[in-house]
């Protein structure tokens, strides 16, 4: 793209985004987003579903600017709860809990939150620029994907999930497969058979991601907190400075850059962009680090990289939605719903027919990111103070929001029952020392993998060689095999070390 047209597009975007009303909607979206991101168990999907009817009353530009604000606002807010109360406010903040919460336990919640916010802001700026410059060519790349490529990409994703697990590789394996099994509940796309539904029509569409995630992460955590003796071991009194030290910043620069790049790239790919991005960025940092064994004990890199990655991915996942009209995740599906409510049918023609809307929304993202930092850095003190709320009150509030959030998705009381069941299940897993994150990823990717596998086979008329004949697919599979090798080797080493110690 020429610099001239680029600047002209940006100028048009600024003229739309910097009106008083649209700045107001942007602020409203960012604030609502942060608030629901902070509240565990209330995600952007549920909030956007609730607010979708309201946006009917707004002009199209304002509505979309606000909805977008909710999404990236939630990415900021989600990390806050992940760090402070070990509850990922968003599925993409799951990995932030690993090191972020450890930092909070050591009384370094302030620096963790600040780095998360600054990293997210940086990633947001870069990703917004990336959308402007790279939307057309990147869209062409994502468009090249065939079902077999998606399948191989999912295989890679699941291998990532196993690599990522800090505990036993065997348990991670088990959790991934258990997640895949849970994901198989529901109606089979290719035959229409209902699997594991026991004739209950609420299960025909499978177990919802939101109730499952809220159950195994949210409710289980609450149960654990309430049952353990030292249930407020969050050491809220020990929080010293809010600002990161010079050393923190120095250590964060490279992870933020890498996270932004990786996240931006993965965000474009359809299917859980932001989640995969944060997981991948964390794994990458762990692999690159000189002290990988320290991850999970409060490494600032483990906060900086996934937080920048998920924000970058949240932004770049707008690319397929804006240019192709294809939702890469549930939130983008909501955005599409928001556009269609205003009679705009998402697709390649939006950029041409509604350039003001298109570029206005993109510029508003940058403005929204700026607002978030300006709002959140001073407000971190407030979020930290959230820890001082007695847990017996906080627990009830969290439960309350979880239930309302789940109920509002489909106005279904049965889904509230589902979170209760998975809450108990999650608690059991916690007691058994099994991590729920691989379970969740298996749950998300498993059914997608199945669909792509069977679609690829259907389209190749039953020829399995397509998976290695397509260069993209082959590359993903090879990468997955390589990664698996990497997990096995250190594990072998570990076992050997243990055996060695025992024999001594």
């Amino acid at each position, binding site marked *: 793209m020429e610099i001239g047209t680029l600047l002209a597009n940006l100028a048009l975007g600024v003229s739309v985004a910097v009106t008083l009303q649209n700045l107001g909607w942007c602020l409203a979206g960012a604030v609502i987003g942060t608030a629901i991101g902070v509240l565990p168990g209330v995600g952007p999907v549920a909030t956007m*579903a609730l607010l*979708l*009817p309201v946006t*009917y009353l707004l002009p199209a530009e304002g509505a979309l600017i606000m909805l977008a604000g909710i999404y990236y606002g939630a990415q900021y807010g989600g990390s806050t709860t992940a760090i402070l109360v070990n509850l990922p406010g968003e599925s993409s903040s799951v990995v932030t809990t690993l090191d972020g919460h450890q930092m909070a336990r050591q009384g370094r919640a302030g620096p963790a939150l600040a780095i998360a916010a600054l990293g997210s802001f940086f990633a947001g700026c870069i990703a917004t620029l990336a959308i402007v410059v790279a939307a057309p060519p990147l869209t062409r790349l994502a*468009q*090249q*994907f*065939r*079902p077999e490529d998606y399948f191989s990409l999912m295989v890679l994703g699941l291998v990532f999930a196993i690599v990522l697990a800090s505990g036993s590789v065997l348990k991670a394996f088990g959790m991934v497969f258990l997640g895949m099994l849970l994901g198989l509940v529901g*109606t089979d*796309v*290719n*035959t*229409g*058979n*209902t699997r594991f539904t026991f004739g209950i*029509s*609420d299960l*025909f*569409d499978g177990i919802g991601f939101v109730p499952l995630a809220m159950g195994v992460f949210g409710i289980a955590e609450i149960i654990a907190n309430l049952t353990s003796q030292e249930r407020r071991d969050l050491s809220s009194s020990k929080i010293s400075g809010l600002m990161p030290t010079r050393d923190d910043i120095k250590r964060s620069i490279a992870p933020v850059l890498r996270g932004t790049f990786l996240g931006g790239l993965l965000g474009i790919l*359809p299917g859980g962009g932001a989640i995969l991005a944060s997981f991948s960025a964390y794994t990458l940092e762990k692999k690159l680090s000189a002290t990988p064994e320290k991850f999970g004990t409060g490494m600032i890199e483990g906060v900086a990289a996934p937080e920048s990655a998920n924000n970058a991915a949240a932004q770049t996942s707008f690319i397929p939605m804006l240019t*192709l*009209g*294809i*939702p890469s995740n549930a939130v983008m*599906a*909501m955005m*599409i*719903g*928001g556009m*269609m*409510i205003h*009679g705009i*049918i998402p*697709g*390649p*023609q939006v950029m*041409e027919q509604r350039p003001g809307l298109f570029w206005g929304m993109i510029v508003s993202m940058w403005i929204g990111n700026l607002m978030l930092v300006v709002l959140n850095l001073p407000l971190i003190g407030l979020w930290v103070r959230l820890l001082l709320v007695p847990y017996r009150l906080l627990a009830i509030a969290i439960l309350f929001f979880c239930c309302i959030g789940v109920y509002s998705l*489909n*106005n*279904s009381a049965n889904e509230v029952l589902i979170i209760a069941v998975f809450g108990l299940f999650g608690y059991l897993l916690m007691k058994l020392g099994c991590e729920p994150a691989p379970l969740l990823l298996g749950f998300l990717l498993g059914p997608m993998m199945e*669909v792509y596998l069977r*679609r690829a086979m*259907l*389209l190749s*008329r039953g020829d399995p060689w397509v998976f290695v004949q397509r260069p993209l697919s082959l590359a993903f599979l090879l990468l997955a095999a390589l990664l698996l090798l990497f997990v096995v080797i250190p594990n072998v080493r570990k076992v050997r070390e243990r055996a060695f110690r025992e024999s001594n």
Partner: protein
Amino acid sequence: MYRRAFLRLTCTLLAAGFLAGAPSPAQAQSWPDRPVKLILPYAPGGATDLIGRPWAEKLTQAFGQQFVIENRGGAAGMIGTEAAAKATPDGYTLLLTPNNTVSILPLLRKTPYDPMKSFLPVGRVGDIVSGFVIHPAAGPKTFKEMVEYAKKNPGKLSYGSAGLGTATQLRLEMLKLKAGIDILHVPYRGSADALNDLLPNTVQMMNEINVLPHVRAGKLILLNINASRRHPDFPAVPTLTELGYPDSDVPIWFAIFAPAGTPNEIVRKLNAKLVEIAKSDDMKARMLALSVVLPLQTPEEMARHLEEDTKRNAEVIRIANIKLE
């Protein structure tokens, strides 16, 4: 003392609740005197939601009472439809649904409702105008060329549907029967998912409204129209009947139903307003933007339409041997 007052209040409220639940002729006359719930059996943002929201808005204006939309998605529309079937038949709960839940699904699955017995038809509120599209790289550029190509290369073209047992699959099966051709059916989870694979030519054909913007942008070719009349935005594209394939449409239509037992007076009142709204230019334009045209029908005509539609779909399902479970 306070407790007794509280108890009395509770009893009064409960009694009022029971009374409100039982329809009486006097209530039918004053209907609607409180908000009306319009159940949509699909999630927000989909076609049903897009068509339902303008209707809720127009009905609110026409009756001076809120028509509130409740999205009850799940199980291919069965959950929301069942909820409407089991609601109190007092005119304060209505269902707005595509024909999928009433004239296709019950033929394939055991549904917890009977479309003929559980509901009273109120009015048809929209017919989808779309047709088969093909990716330019596939080769054929017209409907006739597509049929010839498929005859020469059986099973080579593939078609993405919105899922098994949806009207979009029946449209393909009907085409295969009528033209005597073989096209591979690839079921997707919804039309957006299928479009994802149509644009890079992974599958070559679809039949949905979400592909039409891409036809306008020149990325896909519209071969025909599956409706009785041509699409106003694509006046050069012929209907299936014009192409020599009469009775091959498999219509996709939307309608409002009331739970069986709803007073007839309310159904009449509602139908009269639906017809009035459907005649307004504003509503016509808003629906056309979604590639939907507005039919004008009495409840009796709609009941007949439902019956004919069910019969036709049952025939395709039988001949094409479509099975779920």
